[in-house]
């Protein structure tokens, strides 16, 4: 099971989020990646905070940050990948995997087929920001700025186009633990294709490993002095 970390990008800088609302600065991407490389992090996911008002100009500026990375750790990138133009801008960049969210929710077949042909299905991840509400679950559609019911998603479509699915527990975003395991039961995908994030602590790492999940992404707090990825790796070995 991979133990990676996520880094949110906003205005070309890394930030950490709490509860899908508050943001805390983490510094520039180079510094963040250098620190994570020292931890021998299994992979790094750069996710842009992109909503309905995201534009190509901002996307291009964030790509300049990625372009300059000298990183020997696998990098996934996503947030605002909404057109073939966006995808074509990624050629040659130090990115191994692509993270789509709205494209899967709105079933953008053309975009995902183009991604498959040019990057391979093995590089495609589907990000689902999930919020547990009493007995039902909702997933946030970023380009429409609203939640929709999880049961309305076409998981056959997601399974066909995505290699892995990232389940992001938004209610536990930034928390030291507490990922809501009920989300896994609501998603009809085998755990070996699931990556969990949002409230991933050492206990969550242990049960994710028992479940044979594909991986976990520790919320970007690993860069804070009070946390480090070494402890999570030890938890996975136990």
């Amino acid at each position, binding site marked *: 099971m991979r133990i990676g970390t996520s880094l949110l990008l906003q205005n070309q800088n890394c930030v950490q989020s709490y509860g899908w609302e508050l943001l805390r600065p983490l510094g520039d991407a180079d510094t963040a990646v250098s620190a994570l490389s020292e931890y021998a992090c299994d992979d790094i996911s750069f996710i842009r905070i992109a909503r309905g008002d995201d534009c190509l100009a901002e996307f291009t500026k964030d790509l300049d940050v990625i372009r300059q990375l000298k990183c020997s750790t696998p990098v996934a990138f996503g947030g605002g990948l909404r057109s073939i133009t966006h995808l074509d801008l990624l050629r040659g960049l130090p990115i191994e995997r692509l993270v789509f969210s709205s494209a899967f929710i709105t079933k953008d077949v053309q975009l995902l087929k183009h991604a498959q*042909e040019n990057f391979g299905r093995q590089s495609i991840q589907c990000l689902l920001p999930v919020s547990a509400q009493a007995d039902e679950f909702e997933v946030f559609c970023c380009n429409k700025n609203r939640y929709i019911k999880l049961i309305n998603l076409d998981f056959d479509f997601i399974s066909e186009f995505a290699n892995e699915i990232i389940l992001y527990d938004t209610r536990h975003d930034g928390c030291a633990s507490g990922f809501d395991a009920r989300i896994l039961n609501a998603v009809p995908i085998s755990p070996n294709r699931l990556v969990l994030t949002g409230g991933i602590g050492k206990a969550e790492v242990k049960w994710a490993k028992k479940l044979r999940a594909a991986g976990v992404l520790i919320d970007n707090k690993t860069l804070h002095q009070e946390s480090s990825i070494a402890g999570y790796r030890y938890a996975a070995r136990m």
Partner: protein
Amino acid sequence: MYLDIADLGFGNLSSIQHWVSLANIKTRLVDCPTKLSSSTLLLPGVGSAGSYLSRLRELKFDDAVREHVDKGGRLIGICLGFQAMAKFTEEDSGQVGLSLIDADVIKMTEVFSNNQWHAFSFDKRVLQVNGYPCDYKRSKKRKLSGRVFFNHEYGVINHDKEAATVPINNALSRYSGLIVKNNILGMQFHPEKSQQTGAELIRMIL
């Protein structure tokens, strides 16, 4: 001293260049086969086999790569670049490869996808015994132990008993993680994203 990297418009070329630079070797991105001139050619690959092989043929890199190998030049293939060296791949409804190695590429049945780090051990004598020239002598290191990163749904099955093959791991032992045959070296994993192990490996194989 420099190394040519085939630029087919696919792949994480900047990562490959950074990886090779760790051995203090310069690289050139070559998008036209007539510009190939180094004794070492690297075929990177991130993408799907159908598009990749079509592009290779469209740009006439297929003949250029075979000619490079026939003349004794070193060829290094990474991930899809490695799979392209095989005779046939099941991906994208079946595609004919470059037939540079006696191997086929099939959809792995043991796992849906191999997106993991696996332990990797490598002895440089494997290269010497199999006729692979190490020209640049960037490292005196003979043995390497570490871990490497894989990200693939299709695996290479080697049929050539005279080629040296290192399996991916015990569970996926029928698939090759690395193959060496004369002047050809293929790697299923991504050495450019395998952190310290990748950095040491590039110095050993050049």
